[in-house]
């Protein structure tokens, strides 16, 4: 019997699990994916928005601003990279400038730092801004992270402190019992007092399993597509460049990433399935056309990848975070579309301290263990690197030439709690395959290392899900 079962190991589920792991309660996290942060949390803009644009009075407005302020400390505590890179929201005509007026006043109301700049002033700081930009609002507290690295670190620390995690397990039924809930998966049956539904794109289906009828919200998957540019293109922008927001959301952005790539995107298209995370030629063209309105001189010959992600949007535009009215102890943390990532740490506190006020009052643990951060060789000076290599020569063996990832880092990513079990899992944690060769050189080496470390044949190594077979036969 668990105290709490969390369904979904995305960024929201991970923050909730991490928060609860500091208390004396028994928590199980279940996810159908092969890794933590593998769907919406994997494919998004990776921005910690400052919180000036959600509509006043919404949960989004409240939690975005709070979450943005929590991230720097949380990332430091977890030992993952957070970079405050700042952002411009730019206007190209007087109508758009009026929208900036609204954003500016919302920012002032929420105590979000905002600098009003002329187009000329803005272009001095960002030379590739389009000549048609007439004004820009700068939000210096805007940050970037690798969402999956944050989620993985949170879950790792939660597991170190007793949280149980079941991956590749799909919830198939939830039934209310006298003492709580029976959660049935395709592999096992679990009992718990409370259920937290953080199932992202599948949240409405999970809730329906428990309710045995249609819930009062539905998830509308909205697909966003992106280009990724090689780090050689990193000088295109220094900050995130947003157009003015419109009915479809924040618009098409130009975004620096932690590894010095540039993301271009996203568009926003409603799709009919939560699995439709495919790229389409039309959306990629749309992204190209719209990026050009705010930023010029984009080197499209430096594109190294495209990807698409799905946002789990709700019906009314706001997050849906509440306890079920008919199912006591069943909490929906649903419709977490943008700014879900930026809000996630505040969402966890909101769920525990406000939604479930008084009921999750488990005592704090006195023996809480912090994770040991992954040592990224790129972040060390030469002397520290050489100390690492002297202790463990595998840190001197470069596996990924593009991102300069050593074998030692890959072994660490596999061997630690919530370690990588797949090629994609290794890529998410330490980066081989994120660079310009897209794994062309390093993937066979990563497959070798995984097979050896996991004690399996290479034909058993997976790219991601159990069905994502790579090598089919030994010759």
């Amino acid at each position: 019997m668990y105290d709490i079962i969390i369904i979904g190991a995305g960024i929201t589920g991970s923050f909730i699990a991490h928060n609860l792991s500091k208390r004396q309660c028994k928590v199980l996290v279940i996810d159908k994916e092969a890794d933590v942060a593998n769907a919406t949390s994997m494919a998004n803009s990776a921005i910690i928005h400052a919180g000036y644009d959600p509509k006043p009075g919404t949960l989004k407005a409240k939690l975005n601003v709070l979450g943005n302020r929590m991230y720097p400390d949380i990332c430091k505590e977890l030992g993952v990279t957070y970079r405050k890179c700042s952002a411009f929201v730019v206007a190209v005509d007087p109508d758009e400038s009026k929208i900036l007026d609204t954003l500016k006043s919302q920012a002032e109301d929420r105590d979000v730092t905002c600098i009003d700049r002329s187009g000329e002033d803005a272009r001095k700081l960002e030379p590739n801004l389009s000549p048609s930009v007439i004004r820009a609002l700068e939000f210096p507290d805007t940050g970037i992270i690798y969402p999956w690295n944050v989620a993985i670190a949170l879950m790792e620390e939660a597991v170190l402190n007793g949280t149980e995690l079941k991956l590749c397990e799909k919830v198939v039924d939830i039934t209310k019992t006298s003492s709580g809930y029976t959660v049935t998966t395709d592999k096992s049956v679990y009992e718990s007092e409370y259920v937290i539904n953080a199932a992202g794109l599948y949240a409405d289906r999970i809730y329906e399993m428990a309710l045995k009828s249609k819930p009062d919200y539905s998830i509308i998957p909205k697909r966003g597509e992106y280009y990724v540019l090689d780090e050689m293109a990193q000088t295109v922008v220094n900050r995130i460049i947003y157009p003015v927001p419109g009915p479809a959301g924040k618009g098409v952005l130009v975004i620096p990433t932690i590894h010095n790539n540039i993301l271009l995107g996203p568009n926003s298209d409603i799709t009919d399935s939560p699995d439709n995370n495919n790229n389409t030629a039309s959306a990629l063209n749309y992204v190209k056309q719209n990026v050009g309105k705010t930023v010029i001189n984009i080197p499209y010959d430096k594109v190294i990848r495209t990807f698409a992600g799905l946002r789990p949007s709700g019906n009314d535009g706001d997050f849906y975070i509440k306890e079920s009215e008919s199912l006591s102890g069943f909490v929906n943390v649903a419709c977490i579309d943008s700014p879900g990532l930026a809000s996630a740490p505040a969402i966890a506190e909101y769920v525990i301290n406000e939604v479930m006020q008084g009921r999750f009052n488990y005592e704090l643990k006195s023996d809480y263990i912090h994770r040991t951060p992954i040592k990224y060789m790129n972040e060390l000076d030469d002397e520290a690197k050489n100390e690492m290599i002297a202790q463990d020569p595998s840190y001197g063996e470069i596996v990924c030439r593009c991102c300069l990832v050593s074998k030692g880092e890959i072994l660490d990513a596999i061997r630690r709690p919530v370690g990588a079990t797949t090629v994609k899992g290794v890529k998410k944690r330490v980066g081989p395959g994120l660079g310009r060769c897209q794994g062309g050189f390093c993937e066979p080496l990563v497959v070798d290392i995984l097979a050896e470390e996991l004690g399996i044949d290479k034909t058993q190594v997976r790219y991601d899900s159990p069905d994502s077979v790579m090598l089919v036969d030994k010759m």
Partner: protein
Amino acid sequence: MGVITKDIVIIGGGSAGIAAAVCAYNNGCKDILLLEKDAELGGILLQCIHNGFGLHRFKEELAGPAYAQKWVEMLDATDVEVKTSTTVIHLSADRLITYVNPREGYVTIKAGAVILATGCRERSRGAIATPGFRPSGVWTAGTAQKYINMHGYMVGRRVFILGSGDIGLIMARRMTLEGAKVLGVAEIMPYSNGLPRNIKQCLDDFDIPLYLSHTVTDIKGHDRLSSITISKVDENLNPIQGTETDFDVDTLLMSVGLIPDTALATEAGIKLHPKTKGAVVDEHMMTSVPGIFACGNGLHVHDLVDFVSLEGEEAGLSAAKYVKGELTHDKSLEITAGEGVSYVLPTYIDTKAMEDNTELKLRVGYNARNVRIVLSCGDRQIKEINKLRIAPSEMEKFPISRDELSGCTQNLTISVKEQ
């Protein structure tokens, strides 16, 4: 302790790098260090177990590893210092090199001359933004070749290949011989990008269809690849709606171009060529940064390894001269690609410092028969060569002597003209 210095440091121990080392050594430079990231010398040749290498160089048809072995033996006969499993991390314009390996850690050395022989990488599915899902089973042809030929693992059973570059064609045959069904090869251009002999020996001989003016427009499969769609393209290379054909395959191999690896060249501030994506060089293979030379597929993509070795030797010879102070770097003529030529190397030629004879290397922009390749200086035609046949897949060489260039003061243009 001061920084260790070496007369010549060669980055990359593939066909270009080994040839550069051997040639520099045999031309009087004995203090040479060759750095190779893999555990063995030979580079990409080691996974090219098909034959066809060495016809020009050794007058015999060798498999890739055998061709590499011949060069490694020549290298073994020298005192060139070799470090394998050693990755170069940094290169600066003043020729400071930082490398790392498990034995020494991070080490910075200073070179009198540097030869970049870094090879190329394959353009990936991501780089050409092929729409669709992102399942496993989509690889570049060279990565699949490595899995099969070096690791001994089969990558799939029903295969489609996008791009008719040589590696894609070789892999069509290789996969077929290993029992896979290759359903076809699509090429976006109206002509193949591979060598004619490979079209014949790898596709025609196995009845594998080649779909010219076609590209992959969709990829399906949430886990492993389940099917792809190809479409015909119009003259602007845009897919034509209504021409889609689906293929149920578990594997898609991409052979859509090779790009010189210029990460280190870029860091050192070396000027890059807009067309080759490699460095801009003069006739001594010297880049825009004095003392740094480039050669092989890290400079521009070759179709025959024999010519990669030859270019490595040119760079080796030049670097040896440079460290001995015998290479002058005077004001040079610029050579540009004219009509019908997609690129020409070198970009600069110094009529005073050049050898008696040299060669321009060029790729043409289209297939044609009975044409002339013409080198002009302003309005004046300097030299022309008749060609029965030209193709973008085959590098053309254009010999030129110092005498022929005497009196040239303006920039040179090389073009394809009808006879």
